């Protein structure tokens, strides 16, 4: 668990707090998305977790231990670090880049070699093709895959990611978000991810921390935040379509009623989001849709009213 206790950061020569009395608990195995306007202190907050910045006041604890007592280099070798610009070493091959932390930790050649193959496979790159390449021979998306593999190399418990998809074209970005999310769940990392993209935060975050001017405004699950914004700033930050956004987080299965007598019209799957159910209902101007499994069993019914009620129901 990562615990920020009343953490404040003042940069030298700056009159105001970059981070201002922040309290934040991050459970093991969860992903927290830090989001807020540019300059609100997201990056600074993240960088205090691996001691790239020192808090001016307050403490940061990892698994109960105050990190100010840990050698920064030892701490950082236990924490994966991914940044928007990737920061691959341009003069080193992909395999050497990925092996950076194992090299620092003094792993033997065989173990490092196995790990490189494993990681490149994991992030969807063919080791046989990629190992000997140089970073400039890769596309932006491929480079971030390597950056991600490099951060995972020594199997750190924690991953810090600062706008990891910020420099990637929209189509590749969606693909990488999906893939990285699955990988992070599979290897059950504790993740702190900085983003300024609300959809990304909703998609990747088990919890979202909304910041403004160095302060934490709201910290909760995406569903809860979209349902009950803490204040007007958060409300406007989420946008006028927040109710629709929230529908994409709720599965049809959780809101459906038992199957009806006379099925007709379009159908949806139980695992579809309410967003898709709504779209289906609007498209055919239906009173509701029947819910059918992939193998054709009718398992429920979702009425227009039930769908509209979803916004106020489940929190």
């Amino acid at each position: 668990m990562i615990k920020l206790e009343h953490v404040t950061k003042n940069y030298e020569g700056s009159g105001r707090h970059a981070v201002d009395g922040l309290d934040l608990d991050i459970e093991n195995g969860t992903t927290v998305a830090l989001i807020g306007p540019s300059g609100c202190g997201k990056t600074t907050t993240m960088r205090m977790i691996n001691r790239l910045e020192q808090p001016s006041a307050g403490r940061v604890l990892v698994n109960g231990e105050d990190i100010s007592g840990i050698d920064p280099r030892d701490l950082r070798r236990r924490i994966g670090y991914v940044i928007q610009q990737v920061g691959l070493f341009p003069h080193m091959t992909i395999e050497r880049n990925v092996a950076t932390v194992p090299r620092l930790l003094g792993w033997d050649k065989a173990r490092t070699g196995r790990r490189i193959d494993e990681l490149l496979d994991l992030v969807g790159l063919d080791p046989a093709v990629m190992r000997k390449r140089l970073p400039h021979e890769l596309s932006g998306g491929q480079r971030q895959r390597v950056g991600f593999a490099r951060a995972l190399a020594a199997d750190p418990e924690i991953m810090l990611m600062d706008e990891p998809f910020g420099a990637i074209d929209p189509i590749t970005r969606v693909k990488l978000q999906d893939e990285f999310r699955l990988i992070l769940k599979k290897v059950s990392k504790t993740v702190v991810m900085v983003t300024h993209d609300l959809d990304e935060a909703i998609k990747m975050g088990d919890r979202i921390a909304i910041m403004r001017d160095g302060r934490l405004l709201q910290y909760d699950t995406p569903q809860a935040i979209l349902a009950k914004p803490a204040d007007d700033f958060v409300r406007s930050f989420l946008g006028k379509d927040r109710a629709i956004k929230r529908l994409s987080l709720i599965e049809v299965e959780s809101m459906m009623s038992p199957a009806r007598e006379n099925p007709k019209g379009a159908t949806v799957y139980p695992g579809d989001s309410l967003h898709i159910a709504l779209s289906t209902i609007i498209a055919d101007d239906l009173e509701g849709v029947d819910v059918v499994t992939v193998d054709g069993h009718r398992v429920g019914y979702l009425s227009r009213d039930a769908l509209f009620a979803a916004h106020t129901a489940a929190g």
Partner: protein
Amino acid sequence: MIVVEAFNWILAHQTEFFSAFNRHLALCLISLAIASAIALPLGFWVARSQKASFVAINIAGSLRSIPSLAILAGTMPFLGIGLLPSVVALVVLAVPPLLLNTVVGIREIEPSIIDAADGMGMGRREILWQVELPLAVPSIIAGIRTGAIQVIGGAALASFIGGGGLGDFINAGIAIMNMPRLVVGALPIALLAIFAEVFFGWLQRWLTQRR
């Protein structure tokens, strides 16, 4: 033909010629080595701070505009004549381009690369040897190339303050109005400079392309 006459003179005075040629080369190599030993560490140290880099780049830039002969003449009042003042003058000549290119080479490294290295837990020393130095090498080689050409030309003038080398033939040639003798000094110096230019230029391109 003057060049043929010069060549015949060399054949007839091989010991004299090669002793001057070797001395010229030694003068250049020693000065370059000392200048590198000063400028590279200094460059890495200076590059830590933006302000210091700015100051160093400007001082090095203005030092470069002082003519070689002025620097050589300038050492004489303090160190007299001979080998030592010549080496000192050539070092002073070679340090600015080396320092300039070292500082620029390091400052031009993308900050995100160093940030990533820091964030993964590399130490100062590891970052220096594994990241900064290799990435600055092409720029440093460019500095050595400029410095080498400066020093090869500057060494020709060392003869004026008793430093010896191929410049002696040029001075002798002028003194006795013997053009072939002048060419005995001038041509090898020109060839040395061209060789340094081509070799370091190739090395620089080769190292740059590798990444």
